[in-house]
């Protein structure tokens, strides 16, 4: 970021008099704004697509009244959420009730900062990238717990407790399933991980096809991450048919909107991490994006990345509209009895593979066989 600021100061003579840190700060704010706009747009469009996909799968049409073919439904929803009365229950804990949605939203939104959208399109290429995502999303737990408690509603409380227990226990398999990608790249930075899957092997350069263990890792990650973001079949915290709506049952208006946005934000983060860690990120198959001019390279890689990520989001929606929901003890059992041991075994397998074959994957070995 500072390098960018220096180049900006050099390029624009008008900024010469301004202290460097001010430029950097302004730049940071601008980038954050861009990310926020992207996140909000995705969340809006995502909600529309979710409903459209639901409609298609359920042999009906889905929203089609607002705008051409229902395209503007999300704007109508957004306006509705903003204009709705913001109700705070009489016996709720007012301060925590108001505070909780922000924790959830911040926790979800902060993760967008390290998503590698393109060759040079990343808000902050932290060298602890993946770890950072895991850390900030833990804010969501606190927000959900407080929301459940502050509502002074037993269903909300149960939902909050469920959510917290679920997110905490699924953090482990999620982390363990992502480590193979880290091991292969030798870095926690998401950009490094994406770069490690480049090269001229095309889609076989992806970590997904690196070795059998990474292949399973991807599915383990995807399953566990679905649970961590409370997607069906793991949507117990807001299980509509059991807990009415879970931790957000008492929320209305824009505060509910924040929970809603955070949910879609989490969905994208999961898809983006899966894309970056296993599906080659912004790498264009058989093509080195870095050779293109800055603008075109970035646009191309952005397109590729978003395509992959949205495909993942679609698959999540597809799963969501197919499967029933687990029970809370089964959910825990699934994490501790199935996902955690499997991810550990998988991790061991990947480590051994890397040790034995000196970091080379199956496609790499085949490629070297043919020279």
């Amino acid at each position, binding site marked *: 970021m500072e390098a960018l600021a220096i180049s900006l100061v050099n390029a624009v003579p008008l900024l010469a008099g301004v202290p460097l840190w001010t430029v950097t700060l302004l730049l940071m704010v601008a980038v954050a704004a861009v990310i926020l706009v992207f996140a909000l747009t995705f969340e809006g469009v995502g909600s529309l697509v979710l409903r459209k996909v639901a409609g298609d799968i359920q*042999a009906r049409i889905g929203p089609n009244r607002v705008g051409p073919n229902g395209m503007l439904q999300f704007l109508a929803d957004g306006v509705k959420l903003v204009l709705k009365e913001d109700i705070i229950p009489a016996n709720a804990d007012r301060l925590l009730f108001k505070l909780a949605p922000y924790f959830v939203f911040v926790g979800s939104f902060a993760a967008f900062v390290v998503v590698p959208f393109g060759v040079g399109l990343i808000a902050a290429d932290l060298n602890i990238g993946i770890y950072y995502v895991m850390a900030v999303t833990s804010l969501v737990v606190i927000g959900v717990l407080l929301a459940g408690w502050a509502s002074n509603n037993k269903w909300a409380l149960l939902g909050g407790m469920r959510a917290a227990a679920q997110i905490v226990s699924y953090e482990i398999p999620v982390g363990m399933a992502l480590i193979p990608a880290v091991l292969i790249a030798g870095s926690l930075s998401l950009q490094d991980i994406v770069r490690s899957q480049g090269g001229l092997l095309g889609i076989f350069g992806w970590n997904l096809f690196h070795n059998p263990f990474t292949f399973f890792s991807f599915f383990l990650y995807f399953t566990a991450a679905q649970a961590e973001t409370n997607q069906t079949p793991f949507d117990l915290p807001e299980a509509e048919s059991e807990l009415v709506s879970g931790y957000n049952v008492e929320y209305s208006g824009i505060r509910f909107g924040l929970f809603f946005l955070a949910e879609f934000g989490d969905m994208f983060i999961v898809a983006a991490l899966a894309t970056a860690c296993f599906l080659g990120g912004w790498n264009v198959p058989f093509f080195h994006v870095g050779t293109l001019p800055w603008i075109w390279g970035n646009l191309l890689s952005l397109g590729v990345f978003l395509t992959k990520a949205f495909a993942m989001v679609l698959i999540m929606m*597809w799963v969501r509209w*197919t499967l029933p929901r687990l029970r809370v003890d089964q959910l825990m059992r699934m994490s501790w009895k*199935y996902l955690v041991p499997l991810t550990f075994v998988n991790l061991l397998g990947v480590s051994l593979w890397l040790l034995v074959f000196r970091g080379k994957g199956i496609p790499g070995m085949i490629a070297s066989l043919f020279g």
Partner: protein
Amino acid sequence: MGLKAYLNDIVEAVVTTAKGMRITARYGVDPKEEVTLQYPEERWEIPKGYRGFLHNDIKTCTACNMCVKVCPIDCISLESVRGADKKMVLCSYDINIGRCMYCGLCVEVCPVNSLLHTSGYEMASVALGELILHFIAAEDAPEIKARVARQVAEAAVKAAAQAAAKAAEVPSSGTAEAAKVAEAAKAEAAKAPVVEPKAAMEEAPQAPVSEPTVAKEGEKKE
């Protein structure tokens, strides 16, 4: 739980999920599977025996009260007066369509098929009172009553005159009865309201025109 069962569990979960997802995918991709009817624009074909809103053709209605009696929830109310020909004349016929449960019992019992189900099913109103269908406007009721009363009175006067004539013609047979009839007719005529609204006299839209003659014939038969 052995390792085999453990792995079987996982495989089964994956396989059954994949099976389900194949089905949902098929529905998701195939646009022919959409069954939604875009209601206000598209409508479904209403079958012949559809039980929609009730409609009473008051021209044929004989005010027999069958529908009122059979209705389990008293949503039909009817008021009628006896006309000059001893037949009932409707002066109000209301169906509370907000209360009606479209069971069709009233239509079934209607002897002259004047009460029918229409194919209408859309109705919305902001006041409960609007849900009461008046087949005869409420303000027409006094008019009809007055008109019928007038006709009854006229018929009674005529009948009395005839009876008197008959009595005069044939004094030997049944004088007492004839006199009685004449008395009754006179009394009835006296009962009829003296002040009649002018509007009713001027126009009687649903007036059963041939009633007085029919009445005469009926009496002659005696």
